[in-house]
């Protein structure tokens, strides 16, 4: 597979989780395991462009896939990182709105949100009645737990970058 555009090859046990492979063998320290049973969303990565809970996938299942973590956020967002700190628009919005405190849920949330934003923009471009923006954001955030922020700033950060 490729992980953040770097090819990785390994022989692994069948039960080796994708989350562990990414952390331990692909140097993706930004993939955080918080619950290990697919509820909290902290381990979210993109596999062939789809948001996936890495703790619910076997590494072997990603054989041949293009996996992207928070390190590839710029590509996932379709927007360049810029500024002195090299932040994407979404990351900059999170910082500006103080949408993170301990940071443990943040990388998975950023990956998931970047993909949600693309989908939302695509859906908004279609004729018909896309769901109201805030309702769509809350539905998206149902898949993510944060214990520090109380969510209001996360919602505000996402609203600020979603047209």
């Amino acid at each position: 597979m490729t992980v953040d555009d770097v090819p990785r090859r390994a022989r692994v046990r069948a039960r080796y989780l994708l989350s562990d492979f990414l952390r331990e063998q692909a140097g993706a320290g930004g993939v955080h395991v918080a619950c290990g049973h697919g509820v909290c969303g902290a381990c979210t990565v993109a596999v062939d462009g789809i948001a996936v809970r890495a703790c619910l996938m076997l590494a072997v299942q990603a054989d041949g896939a293009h996996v992207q973590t928070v390190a590839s956020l710029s590509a996932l967002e379709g927007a360049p990182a810029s500024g002195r700190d090299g932040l994407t628009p979404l990351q900059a919005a999170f910082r500006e709105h103080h949408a993170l405190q301990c940071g443990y849920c943040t990388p998975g949330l950023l990956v998931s949100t970047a993909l949600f934003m693309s989908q939302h923009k695509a859906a908004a471009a279609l004729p018909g009645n896309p769901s109201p923006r805030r309702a769509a954001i809350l539905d998206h955030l149902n898949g993510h737990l944060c214990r520090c922020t109380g969510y209001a700033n996360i919602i505000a950060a996402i609203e600020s970058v979603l047209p």
Partner: protein
Amino acid sequence: MLLTGQGAYLANLIRPGMACMRVIRSTAAHARIKRIDFTPIAADPACLGTLCAADLPTGVGTLPAMDLAADSAPARQRILADGTTRFAGEPIAVVLATDAYIAEDLAERVIVEYEPLPTVMDVHTGTQSNAPLLYPEFGSNIVHQTAQRVGDPDAAFAAANTIIEEEFSFRRLIASPLETRGAVAMLEPDTGRYLVYSSTQIPQVLRAELARLTGVSLGRLRVLAPRVGGGFGCKEAIYPEEILVLLALQKFGRAVYWLEDRAESFSATVHGREEHMRVRAALDRDGVVTAVEVDCLADIGAAYSLFSNTPSAAVATLRGPYRIPHFRSRARSVVTNKTPLNVYRGAGYPQVTLAMERIMDLAAAASGLDRAEIRRRNLLQPEEFPVDRGVSYPGCGAIVYDSGNYTALLASTLEAIGYDGFGARRAQGKEDVSLGLGLSFVVEMTSGGGAEPARLRLSSNGRLQLLSGVTAIGQGTETTLAQILSDHLGVAADTIDVVAGDTDDSPDAPGTFASRGATMGGNAACQAGDAFVLEARKLAAEIRETRPEHIEWKDGMLIERGSSHQPLTLSTLVSQAGALGLAATERLDVTARFEDTPVSFASACHAAVVSIDHATGVIRVLDYAVTHDCGRIANPLLVDGQIMGGVVQGLGGCLFEALEYSDTGLPLTQSYMDYILPTAATAPRFILRHIETPSPLNPLGMKGAGEAGCSGAGAAIVNAIADALGPAIALPGGTGPFTPGVVRDILRNAEGLRNAEGLRDAHGKDAPAC
């Protein structure tokens, strides 16, 4: 940088070649351990070692408890269960393997045989005369008690116009930071010292305890807290696993790591909140509360954690912002066959706040007074400060409120939530949805716990480095401290690097708890800053061959008065000093110590608007207003973040979260499907305001802000629920979680009564037809 996923948390420190430690935990709530049999795995080459109690060095002690009284029974926690296990989840043995998968496989194959003993699963059972005893040698399951009295409560109750009595049960909850716990023990390559990393709020305390328990001298021990993914008090404890990784390193000679998984965290990490209270209040005919008394039984689990008795000690502060001249409290800690209890955000304040604020609403109803008005009649007034409450709190001495303006908090919050117009808003509500508004007040002790050191030094590139004892757990103290120091010294905040969590840098700091970080750390940083400026002026004077009195510090530059020389920046100071053979970075390396001051008291007034769907029982918190006073604010954005995070945590405890046990004492809560945390969709719309009544107790005038959000939320929400249901419906004494099922039970019982008696509902409409 956390936004790019580069935060180095404990799990990021694991290296190939480290042994993985897996804990074998008790599957019985109370039992004699007949045998532990490692033979199924002893010959397995994947097994790198095992430990049980018999393998521990003789005389290795028990874990520390810091809030005991002289007469507290020594219900101390062992590192590994020895002969008896007293809670399901208690560490019994450990297995080391090459990786976590194998370690889990091996652990499953170890045989542990139990002989069950009768269990004590609640304080009422535990305090009966024939109760099974967790520690027969104590003769009782009550291991600690405190009592306090102010004035003459008996006389006040005798003279009362009205007496209100209420019982409250607070459920067992957990802090549940998103990052579970973990620890690593290894040898430091160059020095041969032992290096222990732990996801902890208190690395300095851990180092002292590791030395005490393992016999390793302090000089050979370095403890570090890496980036920590949340703590909320559950990482403010000393745990068996932290000691075991070092013991395993000593015994088996290889670096060891332990990572807690989410399933084990529900019983392996301390619990919080569980208390049962009976409260009585005396009112005069004007709605003034003349006396209040509280009797609290705290369910502290099977053994002491670091601060098991502290939450129930908060009953001493039950009166909150209210004058209430006569008072009596008693708190008793009862051991039960559950995970040990420790502080959890608010440390007892959420419970006393809810009790006091429910009493105030009930008092309002009994007196025929508006709920805001009865509070006004009882609040301490600004001119009364400082207010000696006549009670004390363990480790902090006398409770003296330093400053505050509670009437201003109330007025602000009433306005923010739309209190005056609420009747109209309620009337516009939908047929089968009731709206309710609830108020609460929090007066919370902050910044206790000991003197705070700080070290400030100049790097060779002219940047400032602050070495702080305030462990970062997500509350942004790195930013806050940099900002405070920046304001104090007049240098740009982004030229200041704040580091914390390493006992090499700050060997004797208390750690992060009690919302002390910004206040204590900030004051210590400013003191260090002052010392730094003094040294900088001396050095500049030497360079300029003049006297320090002629050198001024202004905005990070050293200016020679009356001279046409360029001011010295810190960078040029380094290079010019170097040219003269003076090492600026050695000279400009100062330590300061902000001595322990009396605790300061932050305060807040909360208001919640909730909706109750009568058909489904679903409660939503719609709007939430907080006016908060933490003295002088360094960073409003961070303070607001703490408040909102705390409120949502309190909301979770009120509506969704609960730990459940089976009849035989086994935890039923094993995952986030069982333990339901709040999500974005459940967060209210926030209206946040601030008042600053500076604390006279420290030069910066600051108070802590980490917990008053959490402490007031349950009270405001429960009061709002009671308001939505109407005065004809009594809330049960249980205080949560208010699940849809609980609400439907309340409504169904009330409908039954109403149908039987033909009453109209509280708001003048017929009962909704649903």
